[in-house]
């Protein structure tokens, strides 16, 4: 399961609308908790695939290093990534699977037909190696900050 606050959820969807007709991408920060990836913050990233940004995304490793370093300073980890599919369903593609290497992380996809974000789904990359890795559907739980605080108490 992926848990995320309404504001982060809305922000990552809005990001896909802003970059339409290009793909947006970003990083989900938080911590993994007994099979649940809990998102505490999201970090926008630039799409380096300017050659074909309408159907490809790539986050520069330099940017990842920076995001990871900042996350570490705030006691967070990378728990997943998000990107948008302009004019395509919120379903992972063969390219998404082939290029996904962060086993245990959540890959969130938002469908943005004609510039308006519709469906947002999350897929957990499971498996143990490059050879047997696969995506499984993962429920997205949008939790309010108060619910999260209660739980923390």
């Amino acid at each position, binding site marked *: 399961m992926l848990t995320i606050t309404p504001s982060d959820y809305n922000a990552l969807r809005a990001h896909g609308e802003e970059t339409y007709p290009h793909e947006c991408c970003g990083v989900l920060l938080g911590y993994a908790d007994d099979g649940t990836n809990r998102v505490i913050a999201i970090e926008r990233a630039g799409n380096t695939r300017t050659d074909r940004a309408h*159907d490809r995304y790539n986050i520069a490793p330099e940017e990842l290093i920076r995001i990871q370093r900042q996350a570490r300073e705030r006691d967070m*980890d990378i728990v997943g990534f998000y990107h948008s599919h302009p004019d395509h369903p919120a379903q992972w593609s063969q390219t998404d699977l082939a290029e996904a290497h962060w086993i245990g992380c959540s890959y969130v996809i938002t469908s943005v037909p004609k510039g308006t974000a519709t469906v947002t789904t999350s897929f957990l990359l499971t498996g143990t190696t490059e050879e047997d890795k696969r995506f499984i559907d993962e429920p997205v739980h949008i939790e309010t900050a108060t619910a999260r605080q209660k739980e923390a108490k």
Partner: protein
Amino acid sequence: MKIHIPTPLRVYTEKQASVSVDAETVSDALAALTATHPDLKKHLYTEEGKLRSFVNIYLNDDDIRYLPEKEATPVKDSDTLSIIPSIAGGAPGATAVMNEVKREEVTLSNDEIQRYSRHLIMPEVGRDGQKKLKAARVLCIGAGGLGSPLALYLAAAGVGTLGLVDADVVDSSNLQRQVIHSTRDIGRSKLDSAEEKLTGLNPYIRIVKFNTMLNSANALEIFKDFDIIVDGTDNFPTRYLVNDACVLSGKPNVYGSIFRFEGQASVFATKEGPCYRCLYPEPPPPGLVPSCAEGGVLGILPGLVGVIQATEAIKLILGNGEPLIGRLLLIDALGMRFRELKLRKDADCPVCGANPTVTKLMDYQQFCGIPAVTEKTTEAKNLIPQMQPEELKRRIDAGEKPFILDVREPHEYQIANIGGHLIPLNTLQQRISELDTSQEIVVHCKSGGRSQQAAELLQKAGFMKVHNLAGGINAWSEKVDPRSPKY
């Protein structure tokens, strides 16, 4: 120094987010890391011991690949090393059929680098792309009209494994378009002839020959060792067989077909796109759509369409560009116009839909309404007695004078004829009054298909003494009179 471990790899470092090691250089540090945590090794390195292409190693803020001394760069205790698997992906569009693993297993020799230099200098192909091509395994169904240009260009491009399925021998009537074969190959197996040309063109590739007709019993077994199937067949049963076997085995079907001046091309049976059956759920009734052997084909057309198929296969391998997925390209060589139809995946498709009813291969001859070939062609077919050419010769020699009806087209009559009365099949109904119901009639065409239809039509109209010349005028040429040209 400190090495930061990314979340997916922490299962191999007892959940530690960072590991401290003593090291002089980057490679020392990585060696120390994998020595303490040996399970990490296969995630970071290929079997050849090279860093996997998607694994980025950063020394502080620098990618070690771009440091002058690369992995030999010296390190200090205060430095940090980060392991960053790449983050990328994209919407469906291009289908990447080649995975990293296969590509990483191949290497290019200096000779190959020189050979493929025009590819290597293009960023869209480059060294990685060329390795993908070398790792790719493409199966061509048919080494004929479409198969010739296809196989030649795929071989030249460096597709590492090319499979060819064909059971035919080279015939002189093939050479008008099947440019992989030569005049001296007439009578030779198409596979052997093609293999010679392909390895002559590129000795760095492997040719796998399947000297058989593709059928329901062998298709899945043959397909299993290939990544992409290219359909260069000329008949409906095999076309449906290739499509269904592609869907069932999850391999893209690069489709092409040709007739006279027109061609079609598409990419079927990818996960996201439609299959041939989404476009044509049912085959046309037998005989409605003539084959190239019956209707003819402009010799250059398979060159045009085959090269389009080869281009699509290469794009699928490279994972680049926009493949013809969900698009049917229509080629009109006479008008020289290319049009495109959008194709949709049919949710109710019997083979690739949500609830498929076709879950294994079937009898495609039967599916396409083609009766099984009987051993004795003299047996009556649909109540029409079949006459062998030798029998017709005997009757003519005996002075029986059977009425010979030729149902071919006038231009075919000019190529070869046996003095029959010419009424093309499509005008037979109107001109039926020219015939005498009481007379014995032997109907013929080029190879026996159209004349069978004509005989059935005559029988329905009340002609009781109608025979079909088995094998048509071509069989006549083979068995009775070799002076009559075969075409």
